[in-house]
């Protein structure tokens, strides 16, 4: 299978299995459009104009309002642990745009065998070249040149999202002033938005949020605490003992 990489949204996309240039172009277009619209670092992005008051949210594009509404929905679902607002009230959709764009890219890629990695979050379809499931290696936050484990994506699990509290470039606003309890949280889910939002929420909300969300959502979770202690749901245990 062919592998391509390109830069967008301040990070790097690795894509395996997009066999035609047209397909790769379609995927690039999805991310570049999302970046143009949602980046707070681009002076004239739509979201930047909302942040500086030159554009009313109600006058924004349907696409932006849809993503914002989705983010607000997740704020409710996570009891506020995930939020599309910075502490100063600025609308920051960074926590959801990447996953949202990945889902869009996934629709553009369609069925077939492919594996998409955007800045450490992974969405897959079908199987790897050998016909075996796609396997995602999870970085060890204590030694980023090593892996903590490797998780095959099986049984409808198409997405693996990882959030951390230590990495620059991650925008997780923890509730309260204390340091985040988990330095890294990986969530496996059937869709990438759920996986990414819940990983972010668990880093933000700590073990209370972890227990709440694992009880309410069909996800598998692996957490690394500041102390180095690991916690895993039964689904993760099954995967690593296969």
């Amino acid at each position, binding site marked *: *299978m062919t*592998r391509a*990489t390109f*830069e967008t949204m301040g*990070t*790097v996309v690795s894509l*395996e299995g997009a066999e035609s240039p047209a397909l790769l172009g379609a995927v690039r277009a999805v991310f570049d459009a999302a970046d143009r619209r949602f980046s707070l670092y681009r002076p004239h992005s739509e979201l930047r104009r909302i942040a500086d008051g030159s554009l009313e949210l109600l006058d924004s594009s349907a696409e932006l309002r849809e993503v914002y509404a989705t983010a607000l929905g997740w704020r409710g679902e996570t009891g506020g642990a995930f939020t599309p607002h910075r502490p100063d009230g600025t609308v920051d959709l960074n926590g959801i745009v*990447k996953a949202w764009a990945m889902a869009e890219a996934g629709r553009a890629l369609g069925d077939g065998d492919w*594996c998409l*990695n955007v*800045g*450490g*979050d*992974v969405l897959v379809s079908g199987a*790897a*070249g*050998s016909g*075996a499931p796609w*396997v*995602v*290696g*999870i*970085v060890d*936050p204590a030694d*980023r*040149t090593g*892996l*903590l*484990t*490797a*998780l095959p994506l099986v049984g409808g699990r198409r997405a*693996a999202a*990882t*959030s*951390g509290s*230590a*990495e*620059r*470039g991650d925008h997780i606003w923890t509730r309260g002033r204390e340091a985040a309890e988990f330095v*890294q949280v990986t969530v496996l889910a059937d869709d990438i938005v759920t996986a990414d939002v819940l990983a972010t929420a668990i880093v933000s909300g700590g073990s209370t949020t972890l*227990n*709440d969300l*694992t*009880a*309410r*959502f069909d*996800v598998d*979770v*692996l*957490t690394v605490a500041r102390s180095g202690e690991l*916690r*895993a*749901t*039964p*689904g*993760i*245990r099954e*995967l*690593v*003992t296969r």
Partner: protein
Amino acid sequence: MRRRAAVASVIASAGVLIAGFQIGSAVTAARTPSTTGTGTAPGGSASNSGTSGGTSSGSTGTTGSSGSSGPAKDGTFTGATEQTPFGPMQVAAVISGGKITDVKVLQKTNQGGRSVQISNQADPMLRSEVLQAQSANVSMIGGATYTSEGYLMSLQAALDQAGFTG
């Protein structure tokens, strides 16, 4: 009569037990569900629910506790539906030869499209346990979001450069 009542009680308890287990798994502090009906509850209460702290105060099932006398008849006795945080739960006990030979879950919860999740709690795991999976053929590296600069030093970059041949 007493056996019949006992059977109904067991069915009800099974319902409570399952509901309690569900609640227990949802409440952070409750690592293991308490067993029902043994000992004295704190404070001297004779309650046998064993699910203190649960949010569900569902009625206990009493279906099958008719007034007839004699030994428990063979058959399947259905408990009442219990409301749990995961949706309605209902169990039935199969009686054969005066003994419960099976307890069936009639109504499973469908939270997230999966059948009953007894517990999806994240429990401590040793590094040596997760490392067992290291030998797997890794296609991509998952980790907290890296920047474009961070990518250059990442395992993902190494993997991409190596050219995947799987």
